[in-house]
């Protein structure tokens, strides 16, 4: 009997579904201008950077679909935030690698995205080679300490 290889990529339909899930984990923030995790393209990034995650995503998305069917729900993206949270927490009981396991790679990759860093007031670059300016600070704040007698034990 031939052994079926696990698919190495999500289908287009699965990718769209994943984007909705990612937007539920980190939704767009209209006030602050932050994009949602799905909107920023994290699904593609996760799939490219972490191929081992693909089977976990497939299983989780399948389980989520089944749970929605059992609740007679059709469009995950159209649900209220509370409904989305409730569904993900429910799935997490049986698929912890999917949820909350997804939080680590989502957070870790979301906060590397240039659009996101810009909303935090950061430049989208590595620390080296430009580094950062940092004020030397007010060393007069040390005056109370300077005026203190030496307090190490002499021996």
């Amino acid at each position, binding site marked *: 009997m031939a052994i079926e290889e696990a698919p190495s990529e999500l289908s287009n339909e699965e990718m769209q579904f994943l984007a909705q899930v990612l937007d539920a*984990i980190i939704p767009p*923030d209209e006030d602050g201008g932050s994009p949602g995790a799905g909107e920023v393209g994290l699904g593609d990034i996760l799939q490219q950077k972490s191929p081992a995650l693909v089977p976990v995503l497939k299983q989780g998305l399948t389980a989520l679909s089944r749970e929605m069917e059992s609740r007679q729900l059709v469009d995950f993206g159209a649900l209220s935030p509370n409904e989305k949270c409730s569904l993900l927490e429910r799935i997490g009981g049986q698929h912890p690698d999917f949820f909350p396991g997804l939080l680590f790679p989502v957070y*870790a990759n979301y906060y590397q995205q240039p659009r996101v860093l810009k909303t935090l007031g950061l430049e989208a670059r590595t620390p080296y080679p430009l580094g*950062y300016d940092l004020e030397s600070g007010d060393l007069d704040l040390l005056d109370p300490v300077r005026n203190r007698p030496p307090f190490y034990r002499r021996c």
Partner: protein
Amino acid sequence: MSEETADVVIVGAGAAAAAFAWSLAETRMKIVCLEQGGWMNPSEYPSSQEGWELRGFGDFGLSPNSRGRSEDYPVNDSESPIAISNFNAVGGSTILYAAHFPRLHPSDFRTRSLDGVGEDWPIDYTTLEPYYDENALMMGVAGLAGDPAYPPKELPLPPVPLGRLGETLGRGFNQLGWHWWPSDSAIATVEHRGRAPCINLGPCLTGCAQGAKGSTDVTYWPEAVRRGVELRTHCRVREITMDENDMADGVVYYDADGVERRQKAEIVVVACNGVGTPRLLLNSRSANFPNGVANRSGLVGRNLMFHPYAMVQGVFDEPLDGYKGPMGCCIMSHEFYETDPARDFVRGYSFEITRGMGPVSTAISGISSGNISWGPDHHRTYASQFNRITGMVVICEDLPELENRVSLDSNLTDSNGIPAPKIHYRLSENSERMLEHAVARGKEVLVAAGARETSAQAPLPFAGWHLMGTARMGVDPEQSVVNEWGRSHDVKNLFIIDGSIFVTSGAVNPTNTIQALSLYIADQMKQRLDNLFD
């Protein structure tokens, strides 16, 4: 294959070996250093690469057991609440250290006399003082004169910047009337001996791409090599070999290809840190040393000391710029360093105020702390944390106890089949009470500085950075492994120069003292060359 006999073979190329080799090189002796790691390439350090924050959890992580680097050896630390954090390369653990660089206090050398605990060292603060000064020039130590917690000292470079964060915490200490001072830091705050100045990259603990941090691959080693020291990398020493007169005659090691080789030497110097050194000595068994070389006292591996650490953090309303600047070097406080009979513990601790976290680290730590939500509240909770968290680590003095020790694991080996070390360690009641006191004081100062909430973790489980006491120095061969200038009591041409020879731990990062000790031992050897083995 026969090899030329060296005058001196040094095992390990970390903090101690680098200073020692540089100093001893002026004798023009043939000095060979064998290091199991290689030279690091600063252009490959995470701070110059995409995903720089995450690599601190991966190939530049703290534990040799999880980094996946072939240069590391495994450590069984499953029976210790504190896991080993070391690094194997030219520069050793200085590659990943914070470069927080205080000296021991005078009282640290006299704990038995002053407080009735530990043991007195056979040397004192004044013995090491000139070597601290010499080391400050070589490592490039930044700091400020006038600290009332110490005898007068001059440091060659201006202090690291306080930034908003340091000022904020400094005001908190002032409000409580407690000591604080800019950290002594092995960081080139201005250009120093060819090293570029610090540009506040942030993640010093994953290597300094700028070369401003004083890791010994950029301080002592280039100068030692220019003085003629031969540094052989990817050479892992298995054992020290002995002749019929109870003198060491060299070492057996595996080269980069795994080929067994031998390096003969007139003098053997061990500098493998407080875990690697007892491991090597215990692995070096012979007819006259059935329990390991230099171990007739039975103390090799015993009296292992860490510094039990706590982390205390606060969340502030105002931005702190904490992702900028050397992350382990800002300000320090020695308010609770010395013994106070009013407390329920002896000896004391220091505070090392750290900086903050980058965007990814903030998010990831928010998962474990529960302070950052997923879902509709994510952005609000993230904004309340990012660039607003700072705090300190607490460094508690650990006291020597025989049962805290390094042994050889009966099953675990490294990639060359050499038995790996096993750690046996428990926190003392004194340490537990000290940690409790420190966490309460840490929270107090954070609140005084304006923190709206605080949290703490004690002991820190991954904080086995400081490895001391496992081959301690002393004048009594029954109670110590090496004499007052680092020579084995049992083997007169075997020297130990790393943190293993500490008698007590003090309550500060040990690297400065490790190097001062190794410079002192090198000087002692130079003065005794005519009768070194008498």
